[in-house]
């Protein structure tokens, strides 16, 4: 066995981090109650809530100080994203944050945009798959974005469209839009090109997945909390259904999966902030496991609530639907396995396999 590197394994939050977490837990509890979430459907966007969020500084807090941010790291962003996920806040937090951070890494051409994002007058979204003219992709947050940042045939571009975006209906009530870089645009600003552009784009997509992982952790935790409460309150055969192990044990497994997912996301975020070269495998693991944990939590949650859980009256369905969209938009989550293997074991050498 190779010499394992011994690392600290300290998941405690600093006072500042704890304050941040608590502040946004109460912000979203107050500002994103479930009826506001429901009334933002089907688009999944509440402009007023976005403006409130802008006034907290969150959308740009992850930018470097010289680009108008607070230099907050992914750990801090993940703490906020989890709380947004817990309350299903109908705002494109992850798309804007990741796209803005990407722009900030690509020179000064977009300074004006970053200022506008900070002021709440514009929003950007990240197209999370490499793009090509003639191939439309669904861009998360794109339906409410003024600009889309995408990687188009070796160039990183900031695209603004002539037509106002419209979003297709979708399982997660996400403000999605179709985007094809070959469509007519008002402007297509190239912000980087070549290998550095590709590397920055890959980083941004990993950040998108990581912050989505944190969001999914929040959703999974909320689904678990709803289900546990229901299991305490609902009576069948004269006892609370939580006394039945068929109900209790799956909830225990969900609780374990959610706690593991949260810690993976935190550790991945910490590594990305402090030792970026060590981070990619952990980030992919965090995303894949969060997708699974949220799927498990919301499916168990529906089952725990019985027939009620299957009705649209139950809030569980709101979580169930969003858990799936957050897991699908970056592509088949299982495809992350290949990325994990690449990071851990190096790329496959098909020429060797080809000899078979």
């Amino acid at each position, binding site marked *: *066995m190779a010499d*394992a*590197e*011994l*690392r*600290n*394994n*300290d*998941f*405690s*939050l*600093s006072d500042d*981090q704890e304050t941040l977490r608590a502040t946004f837990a109460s912000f979203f509890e107050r500002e994103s109650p479930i009826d506001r979430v429901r009334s933002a459907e089907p688009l999944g966007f509440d402009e007023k809530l976005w403006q409130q969020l802008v006034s907290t500084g969150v959308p740009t807090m992850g930018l470097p100080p010289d680009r108008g941010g607070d230099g907050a790291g992914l*750990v801090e962003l993940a703490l906020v994203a989890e709380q947004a996920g817990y309350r299903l806040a109908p705002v494109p937090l992850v798309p804007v944050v990741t796209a803005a951070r990407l722009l900030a890494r690509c020179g000064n051409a977009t300074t004006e945009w970053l200022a506008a994002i900070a002021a709440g007058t514009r929003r950007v979204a990240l197209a999370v798959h490499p793009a090509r003219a003639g191939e439309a992709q669904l861009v998360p947050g794109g339906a409410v974005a003024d600009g889309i940042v995408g990687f188009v045939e070796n160039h990183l571009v900031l695209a603004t469209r002539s037509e106002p975006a419209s979003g297709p209906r979708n399982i997660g009530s996400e403000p999605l839009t179709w985007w094809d870089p070959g469509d007519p645009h008002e402007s297509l600003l190239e912000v980087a090109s070549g290998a550095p552009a590709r590397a920055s784009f890959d980083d941004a997509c990993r950040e998108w997945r990581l912050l989505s992982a944190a969001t999914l952790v929040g959703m999974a935790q909320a689904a678990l909390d709803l289900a*546990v409460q229901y*299991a*305490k309150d609902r009576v069948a055969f004269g*006892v*609370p259904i*939580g*006394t*039945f*192990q068929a109900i*209790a*044990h799956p*909830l*225990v*497994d969900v*609780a*374990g*999966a959610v*706690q*593991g997912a949260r*810690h*993976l996301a*935190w*550790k991945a975020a*910490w*590594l990305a902030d*402090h*030792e970026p070269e060590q981070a990619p*495998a*952990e980030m992919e*693991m965090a995303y*894949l*496991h969060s997708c699974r944990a949220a799927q498990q939590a919301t499916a168990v949650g529906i089952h725990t609530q019985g027939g009620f859980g299957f009705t649209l009256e139950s809030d569980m369905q709101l979580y169930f639907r969003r858990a799936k969209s957050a897991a699908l938009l970056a592509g088949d989550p299982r495809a*992350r*396995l*290949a990325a*994990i*293997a690449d990071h*851990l*074991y190096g790329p*496959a*050498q*098909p020429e*060797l*396999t080809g*000899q*078979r």
Partner: protein
Amino acid sequence: MDFAPLELSADTHAFWDEVRAFYSEHLTEEMLEKEHREGNGFIPSLQLAMGARGWVFPGFPVEEGGAGLDPLRASLVEYEMHRRVGPLLPLFGPIHLVAATVRVFGSDELKAHVLPGVARGEVLMAFGYTEPDAGSDAAAVKTRAVRDGSEWVITGQKMFTTGAQLCQYSMVTARTDPDAPKHRGLTMFLVPLDAEGVEVRGIETLGGERTNFVFYDGVRISDMYRLGDVGAGWQVASSSFAVEHHMPNGTGGLEPIVPRLNEFGWYGVLGALVDAAVEWAHAPRSDGSRPIDEPRVRDRLAEAALDRELMSVTPGPYVRVSTSAALIRDAADLLDMVGPTGVLPRGEEGAPVGGTLEWIHRFAQGTSIYGGTTDIQRNLIAEQLLGLPRHRGVLDRRS
């Protein structure tokens, strides 16, 4: 939050080298091979060598037979051992638990009589809770202890007393008041296994670990061997599980690794499983091709690596339940990955990675059973951490 590599002082590095050299000398391939065949759970000569250095209780003060090591060094002693033995020697951790129970509940006389020998590595101790009709319902024991002057006479049958064939003592729950409710009529004893009337009979297991029936036929022991008050056996047993979370081995920066390993080394087993699978995947076949270049292999290794990382970050009470499930799932899947030669056990010509995957696949099944089944642990988590109303089985345990 901090996941930075540990910064070890030159002194600690030197100590670490010393630990490695120690195991190279005292934990040889031949010993491990014998352990594979016999599944004893202890290697007495290793225990003695560790005792000589105070490493049975490395964090204890020297006066108590320890080595007075800081938490980090104490952890390195255990960490290095587990890296070498993987799932072998599962009894190294539990002995701390019995010793901790003796420290808390034993009389001064008993402590002076037993603990120095344990620290020297001369004395080994086992758990004797389970009986043929008392497993999960651990308070349902039928073994009787009847007072006779300053002595007790113990009669009954224990099952799954792992390590009893080598141990000097077994910590036994016995019924002292058959008329009291089942949890109140128990008393705990540290029974010397060389006493007259004790018979140990081996039980072979699917995972290769040896465990035992222990028969007690009118075994006479002094009252000195009682742990805790008469009738308080259930509290003593429960405390011994609580103590599990405050192991004498320090935690320090190694916290994620070492306390996990105290849990019968399951986290370490998952690591051993993944390492074996990765090793298999990198070995070229006769045509030069390597499994690691095939997508189906890469996906599976990534799944298992994800589980390994996940278990290393999953907190406290959940990790045992989820690690056991991950072990059972991943061992089966990684064995499938290997294909036909996966059926070959250790020692058989052509067995991949020395049969490690095949062995861990069998071994994994036990991890959901001993130390209290994972179902029992789920009951406890549901009640104590999720706040769900008590399940009947749990209710019974408290009555």
